[in-house]
């Protein structure tokens, strides 16, 4: 008996390993391939043009550094989209978070700097939590579609940021303010990249290994079934929007730290860039399906694209055209994949 049980668990472990390798290939295979092809193409063009090599450790770190702000935001957005919703307020929250944090630090007047910086960040996070909580309440209690609720929040927060900052960037901050955005651990890894990677890992664990993550996917897959299975749909959704807002503010704080100021102009249109990265990463806009890993690769594809195009000297307008085409291609690819799967389903 114990022998056969052992045998079975050994078998299922092997099968499990094979399964997860295949699952990895199925989930990330195409995306990774696309990313590799993209980088190789840029490298080849760079060589032909005789500019510096695109694929160097330095430039890769640059891409990661570049992605940190979007990266942190895209983790929250992945949860929102998997739950079947959308969050349009994240771009405004970037500006709002930066402004709140900068204004608190400046109000503190300097001494001790670390205390006021910590207070500024905490204040910004708290403001983000309040904004997200508000969005979550409007969406779950009053049953307003997320698109509308967060559109309203996007507009109001943008305006509020301008009012608080009196229309001007808030600068004259202590030099330590830029540590989060500019400093590197051991002179190699930027702190912002570490924050980004930490958020990514935590997001992945939360989505894949906790009740909360499972409930988010169940709600996105079928809200009524989830509710009738005892999932507290309102609470879960509320937390999803709260989390997305807080992470957007984290992105805003990092960005304002990079710039050494808090500006109400920042983050304009970022919600679309973040949604693009999430969608390129294979998360379905209809909910229920998506991964943090996919979002990560989607983000790298989008960031590498803008870095690479800069590298080979394509100007901004051309970059926008190409980004649009890449988003379209990614979604078509995903649709095509879905189609072949549903054909294989049989009768």
């Amino acid at each position, binding site marked *: 008996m114990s022998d056969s049980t052992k045998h079975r668990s050994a078998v299922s472990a092997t099968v499990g390993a094979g399964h997860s390798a295949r699952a990895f290939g199925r989930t990330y295979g195409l995306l990774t391939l696309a990313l590799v092809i993209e980088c190789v193409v840029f490298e080849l063009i760079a060589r032909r043009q005789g500019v510096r090599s695109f694929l160097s450790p330095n430039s890769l770190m640059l891409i990661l550094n570049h992605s940190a702000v979007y990266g942190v935001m895209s983790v929250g957005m992945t949860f929102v989209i998997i739950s079947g919703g959308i969050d349009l307020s994240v771009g405004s929250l970037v500006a709002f978070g930066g402004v709140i944090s900068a204004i608190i630090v400046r109000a503190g007047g300097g001494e001790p700097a670390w205390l006021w910086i910590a207070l500024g960040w905490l204040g910004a996070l708290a403001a983000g939590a309040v904004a997200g909580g508000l969005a979550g309440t409007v969406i779950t209690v009053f049953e307003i579609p997320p698109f509308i609720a967060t559109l309203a929040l996007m507009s109001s927060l943008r305006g509020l940021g301008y009012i608080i900052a009196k229309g001007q960037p808030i600068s004259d901050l202590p030099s330590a303010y830029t540590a989060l955005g500019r400093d590197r651990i051991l002179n190699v890894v930027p702190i912002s990249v570490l924050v980004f990677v930490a958020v990514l890992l935590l997001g992945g664990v939360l989505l894949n*290994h906790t009740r909360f993550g499972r409930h988010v996917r169940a709600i996105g897959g079928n809200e009524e079934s989830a509710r009738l299975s005892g999932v507290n749909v309102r609470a879960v959704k509320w937390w999803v929007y709260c989390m997305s807002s807080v992470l957007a503010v984290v992105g805003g704080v990092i960005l304002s730290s990079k710039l050494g100021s808090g500006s109400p102009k920042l983050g304009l249109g970022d919600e679309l860039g973040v949604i693009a990265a999430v969608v390129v990463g294979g998360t379905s806009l209809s909910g229920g399906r998506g991964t943090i890993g996919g979002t990560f690769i989607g983000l790298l594809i989008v960031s590498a694209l803008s870095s690479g195009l800069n590298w080979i000297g394509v100007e901004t307008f051309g970059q926008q055209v190409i980004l649009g085409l890449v988003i379209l291609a990614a979604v078509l690819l995903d649709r095509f994949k879905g189609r072949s799967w549903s054909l294989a389903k049989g009768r």
Partner: protein
Amino acid sequence: MSEYVLQMKDITKRFPGVLALDKVSFNLKPGDVHCLVGENGAGKSTLMKILAGAQPMDSGEILLSGEPIQIHSPHHAQTLGISMIYQEFNLSPYLSVAENIFLGREPRMGKTPFINWSKMYADAREILGRIRVDIDVRKPINECSVAQQQMVEIAKALSFQSKVIIMDEPSATLTEHELRALFDLIRDLRASGIGLIYISHRLEEVFEIGDRCTVMRDGQYIDTKPVGELTRESIIHMMVGRELKDEFPKEVFARGNELLRVEGLTREGAFEDVNFAVHTGEIVGLTGLVGAGRTEVARAIFGADRFDRGQIHLNGRPVTVRSPQDAIRQGVGLLTEDRKNQGLVLGMSVRENTTLANLKELVRGLFISRGRERSVTQHYVDDLQIKTPGVEQVAQNLSGGNQQKVVLAKWLFTKSRVLIFDEPTRGIDVGAKVEIYKLMNELVRQGVCVLMISSELPEVLGMCDRILVMHEGRLAGELSRSEATQERIMRLATGEAQANVN
């Protein structure tokens, strides 16, 4: 001129890994109601989808009025005179009845792109008049009842001058009265020489309306016979390929403690003053016509919908149930009638569906223990004999019977003591039905009490210890297993009789 309006010869269709249709032939005479029966997965739907142009065939031949035809698309099939009325109607909810009937073929003002509304309404009225249906042709579809929508589908089929009309489970969502009206209409259509293909899981309907019956099994054609030469037993025998000894394997257990009691349960406009109790050791049936309020009562007990007055007792104690979470905590589970939209998250795996309602049981520290989750699911897959390639299979890919078992596994894992089954065998084939009944027996043996909502009287009579009958939101009466007959239930359900409750 051929004797048949439609001939399908040696139709073969292969899906990756399965031979869905293996040289199936099917012949339809004009003016015949030809029933097509078989278990789920027998290939009926595939055969009909090929006929309706929704799927291409790999090989075979289709003749319409003796002429060989190639069907390229659903629209092409319609223009050839073959219309299919699906279980889920193909109607656009915000367009009017007339607009739906003529969708894509709107009559126009001469050669201009403008719609000739008066002609469209007049034509729609004329067609609906032909089938003696009285609906306002300007009414939006979403304001029509299900039965009216079905009539609109039939009218649409007629507007194409159809020679062949396929109906896929047309009775599934109709009330008894509406079903009568549908049968009358089918008889009219038959008299006008149209060939009708009627797919149903309810064998009673085959005997009531069918002229001829074809049985399929495992993608193969079994036989075609005039209905008069068939019996219920002989059809089931052909469908399952073996003698099905006992359609209703009822076991009677000793009645134990009262587990569930509802007192004076009322929701204005839905149900009123509903009182009953369910004990361990018994299966209690809750039946009545569609719309009598059975599902509403069940959802109220489960906390899925609110109620205005009344009290629910579990295990002798009054309890407050405001949400499904509360109900689950108290040991109540609900297997909804609509598995796909309310019971399962179709895109999730068997594992994730099984554990969804009781994940806290699997959480160690902060995280779900994936290993324990797999072994728990595997346990239920083995125990309930769920046919699936593995616990990671996506629920969408399972058959109806196996999906129902996954829903059941979910409630077993929550350690439910009161299970409410709402139409547990709807859309499930005969063989799988028996398995579900046996599982119910097993649950009752283990001390679970079962409340079964069902419209299928043979099932209610076959499996329940007591039968509660609802009529227009009220309990019209209660019958014991020994005193219940189909006729007595119908008398209570239609309000002809009132019996003392309790």
